[in-house]
């Protein structure tokens, strides 16, 4: 058990809240995408798996090759387990983070992809969310749109879980950040003992 924990880095001390954490930054919300984003992939895998098993158990297989069925079957099962679990690992590595400074979209995969996009709070002009369709309403997910300060800046996050709650938290953090920024010069002047201009 100790080996397993050491191998997987479970219980290791964490110095930062997330990779790329800046001083003074604190996390307000972490989320992965909704599990519905996995459904199309799982359907494809299930159909392919069914077809493969049907082929291996059919008479056609024995006409084509003399490789024992158990060999091929175990290889096919292993490949499908790899596909499923690898997809689940990738799913857990795609993270949306909201901190008091920025919104970070981390799109990593296990081996091949390292991608990160950060949207500073002061670049956010407007926040919108959309839940349309019966599935989005039943399973509580939707699309979140972050509109940037220039017209061509638009960030779209699909399959955001509890999108209304997510939007609410993000809007609160955004407003708080804007208030802090707008009060910053007067607070600095007060600290220095300079009276604000009337």
């Amino acid at each position: 058990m100790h080996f397993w924990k050491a191998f997987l880095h479970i219980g290791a001390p964490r110095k930062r809240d997330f990779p790329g954490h800046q001083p003074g930054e604190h996390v307000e919300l972490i989320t992965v995408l909704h599990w519905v984003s996995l459904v199309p992939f799982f359907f494809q895998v299930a159909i392919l798996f069914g077809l493969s098993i049907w082929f291996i158990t059919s008479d056609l297989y024995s006409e084509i090759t003399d490789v024992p069925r158990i060999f091929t079957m175990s290889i096919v099962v292993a490949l499908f387990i790899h596909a499923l679990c690898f997809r689940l690992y990738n799913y857990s590595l795609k993270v949306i983070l909201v901190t008091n400074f920025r919104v970070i979209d981390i799109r990593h995969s296990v081996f091949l992809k390292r991608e990160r996009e950060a949207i500073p709070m002061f670049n956010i002009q407007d926040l919108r969310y959309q839940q349309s369709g019966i599935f989005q309403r039943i399973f509580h997910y939707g699309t979140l749109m972050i509109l940037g300060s220039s017209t061509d800046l638009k960030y779209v996050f699909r399959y955001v879980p509890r999108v209304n709650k997510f939007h609410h938290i993000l809007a609160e953090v955004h407003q708080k950040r804007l208030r802090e920024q707008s009060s910053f010069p007067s607070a600095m002047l007060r600290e220095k003992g300079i009276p604000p201009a009337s």
Partner: protein
Amino acid sequence: MNWWLFFGFHILSLVFCLMATRATFRYLSKYRMTPQTSFLMVGLERTQYVALFYVGSILILTLLSLAVGIFHFFS
């Protein structure tokens, strides 16, 4: 079919599975999660079940292939 090819595939498969599991957990362990901030997150703790299933099933398939190989060898 040469049994060694079959067994070799499963050994490589097991190695790949362990590498993927380690890489994933090394990265996920960099997040510090609290119930207040990560209530929507599939974190380290819940991904452990996936890892358990993944490593367990691939290990069982490898052992099964070994058993089949031994059976073929002695029969």
